[in-house]
């Protein structure tokens, strides 16, 4: 793992990310924008399924998910650039490992949500319809995991000394 990080550090892309200070700062701004879009659009669907907000049909809120995916894509790209720029400060950082763990679990939660057919079940819910218990579990898990991703992302400088 260490050898891999050293190799990543030796690439040209890594040099570009760290040589121009504006690249890192711009990526930080984009990473926070992507985070907000992802959390808001996925969170809106989660809150609808939990029943904390019921005035919309689930199919309507579902159309926001693609925007959440856009936010996620922004963060994959910018996060990848952070890693390429300073791989050595991430590979040994426990906060980074936990962030990746929560990210993986969140992805698994999304996969299960679609594979088990719960996504299709809730698709037909009209305004003020209550969603089945299984959908509420998926929604609560999603909110918890994404909050965890934000928490460990924010802890990168404080637990492991990244910046």
């Amino acid at each position: 793992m260490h050898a891999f990080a050293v190799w990543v550090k030796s690439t040209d892309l890594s040099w570009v990310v760290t040589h121009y200070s504006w690249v890192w700062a711009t990526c930080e701004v984009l990473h926070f924008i992507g985070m907000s879009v992802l959390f808001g659009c996925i969170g809106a669907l989660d809150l609808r399924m939990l029943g904390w907000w019921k005035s919309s049909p689930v199919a309507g809120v579902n159309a926001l998910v693609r925007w959440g995916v856009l936010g996620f894509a922004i963060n994959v790209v910018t996060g990848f650039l952070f890693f390429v720029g300073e791989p050595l400060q991430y590979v040994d950082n426990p906060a980074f490992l936990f962030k990746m763990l929560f990210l993986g679990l969140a992805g698994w939660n999304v996969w299960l949500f679609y594979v088990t057919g719960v996504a299709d079940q809730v698709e037909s819910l009209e305004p003020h319809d209550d969603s089945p218990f299984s959908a509420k579990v998926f929604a609560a898990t999603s909110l918890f995991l994404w909050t965890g991703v934000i928490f460990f992302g924010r802890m990168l400088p404080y637990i492991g000394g990244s910046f």
Partner: protein
Amino acid sequence: MTDSHMSLTGSPHSSPSHEPAARDAFDQAIDDSIRRYFMRHDPPARVYARVLEATRAATPRYDGTLFFWLIGASSTVAAMLLVNLVRQLLGVTAAQVSADTAARGALFLVWLSNTEFARWINESESVIGYSGILFLHTFGLAIVVGFSTAIDLRLIGAASRMSMTAVRPLFRYVWFGFFVNALSGAMLFAADAPRKAENPLFELKLALVAIGVALMAVIQHRLLQVESGVARRDSESGFRNLAIASLLIWVAAIAAGRLIAYAF
């Protein structure tokens, strides 16, 4: 006994022995006695309250006073900050503010950052210290800008299977996130008051957040007007402009806030 019960439920075939005219007279008598009963006896307080509540819920009334003050206050704050920022950039502050006032302001900031609480935030190694407050600030940001984005996207025209007013309940989460961030932001400011106060990016960020709050308040105010029938529904382009402005302001606020850590 059975007959009178049947006629109360109003089923026409349940009492074949009565002539229609006789049944009408019977119903009339019941109606009269009910009316007379309620003229003499007040309905129980609980029934009365429930009827009132149902009537109120059925006819939404909207009083925009709260939003009037919120929009007014946040625009005033934004305008003051922006004017001060421009004056600072033009270098006229030193000439306008007396040395005495400036010194008192600086003293206050130093005092603030040396209070027991501010020192605890800075020096605590625990996760509820500086890093925990910073996490709350990031979490609140994701809630405020995230749910604002969801609302704005709908008003711009995405997810049009929801009605426009269906997103209105999301505002309570926007304001919850804003409350979290006002509180955590005040703590972060206290911990580093003198340096933050002289950073123009910090002031710009505050101004942008104030504008963002004003825009969200305007949007919620207008959605409530549409919901209660005060405003007509054909104002979609107005909503679209407000939503685009709000998205741009939030992006700018995030950029200014994030760059505080880099540029100065």
